[in-house]
């Protein structure tokens, strides 16, 4: 992304669920302030929340970066967690590797990645087992 982009960084705290979702709520406020259309805001808000939750469940948190230009929004979610062993499998609805205690909280239903794909114009996953995962969510504004 070029220098003209607005850039915001959020630390996704992996220590507890209490703060999970904070980055997507803050991002939503920013997007509203600069007049992004409600439909795009909703899709970003849902997809980013899923991503944040995934980072908390699987990777002890990570970094969320938001880049905004006049015609594109990029949400970059980066962690140094376990990585995704089989991306194709992980993209299937209902597939989950979340432990039982997480499912008991209502998370880990296996809809995270599918929802992120559904609620973005473009999604890139860059992952390596034992190293970490970076997911890019792209949105076209024009």
């Amino acid at each position, binding site marked *: 992304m070029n220098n003209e982009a607005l850039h915001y960084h959020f630390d996704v705290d992996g220590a507890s669920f209490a703060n999970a979702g904070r980055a997507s709520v803050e991002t939503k406020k920013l997007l*509203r302030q600069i007049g992004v259309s*409600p439909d795009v*805001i909703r899709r970003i808000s849902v997809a980013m929340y899923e991503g944040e939750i995934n980072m908390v469940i699987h990777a002890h948190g990570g970094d969320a970066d938001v880049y905004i230009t006049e015609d594109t929004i990029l949400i970059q979610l980066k962690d140094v967690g376990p990585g995704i062993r089989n991306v194709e499998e992980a993209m299937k609805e209902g597939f989950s590797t979340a432990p039982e205690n997480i499912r008991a909280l209502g998370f880990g239903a296996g809809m995270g990645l599918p929802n992120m794909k559904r609620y973005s114009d473009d999604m890139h996953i860059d992952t390596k087992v034992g190293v970490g995962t970076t997911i890019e969510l792209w949105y076209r504004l024009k």
Partner: protein
Amino acid sequence: MAVYTHSVTIEPEKCTGCTTCLRRCPVEAIRIRNDKAVINANQCIDCGECIRVCKHSAKRASYDRLDELDFSKHLIALPAPSLFGQFNHLDEADYVIQGLLDMGFSEVYEVAKAAEYVTDLTRIYINSPEAVKPVISSACPVVVRLIKLRFPTLCEQLVPIMPPYELAGKLAKEEALRKHPELSPEDVKTVFISPCPAKVSWAKSVMEGQTVYVDFITSMNDVYMELLSKMKGSEPGPEAAPEAGSVGLRWAMTSGEAASLMNEGYLTADGIDNVIKVLDDLESGMLGDIGFVELNACSPGCVGGVLAPSNGYVARLRLQTLQKTVVVKPNKLEDIDSMDSFGEGIPDEYTESEAFTYMPDGAPNMFKLMLAMKKADALAEKLPNKDCGACGSPTCKAFALDVVNGEADLSDCKVRSQMEG
């Protein structure tokens, strides 16, 4: 479109320019300019928080004064359900209604009764195909305005039914004109006895050409004083028998509205900060399977409104006691004779008069706004970030944006100049 008139006025001679309201305003609509608080009407949601927290009584809600009412007209009092929780040792609602009649009102129509019809209408709406789940109650005008200003994607989830006080006004007028054919519509005026100022703004801000069924909105505080003296030593007659049941009374307390629906998983919250948090989570679509959401700006519901004289929690306790004395069976839609069939959704005459559409503050020009944000972000990094409020803006971030927009001067930041000096 009508200009939005918010319901809080500031008394400059009392305002000391302290930063209490500045920092407590949930939507950052207040600035201190020339040592006085100023409210941005476009952003204010009328929650009343600034009235509540002001230590100098410098904020006043605007409403219609009792002594300005013309009691020679056919005035119908519309008491909010919360009014019945304001009295010690009240064991029958009749005393309150008789007191209102003794004050000079020609009739009393309980808003609690209309609330029971709204419950019925909401039940029909929830089961209709056009309902977007979870459906959000539109009874609290603060919540409605907050959603319209800041939660664009939730607008379609608001229940499109007029709030109980409006429906009460409509039904009361129709009934009065039926009972008294000699009266003309101009002679019949409705007076809502309100626990909160947000309802005042709501009535004043509806669009031109729309019918508003509540003609005057008075403060419960004002009515209380007068009513109390009338209630002493007066025995209620048969015309003072309450018509609302316990379902309607419960609307004054958080969860009362939701529980009365009796058919859905529901979520309720009160207090403006909690409401905002729930709306944020709702917008992320992550609250799970919920049919209905009831949100109240005041805690523990309308009984906690800033125009209500009693402590809201005490009022709630009294209402819970009083509830046991009134009939349990609620008023049903079938009883309104003007209403024959409602099988095909909600008839237009009961729907909310103003469409719930997103109305952002000003026309957004993304490029300009982005440029301003970028400048403000850069400036904010040079600020102390103590959010002290001494400059007159609620946070350093807000101050940076105010400077960029030409509404404040960088020299207003005293902390920064001290740190540099």
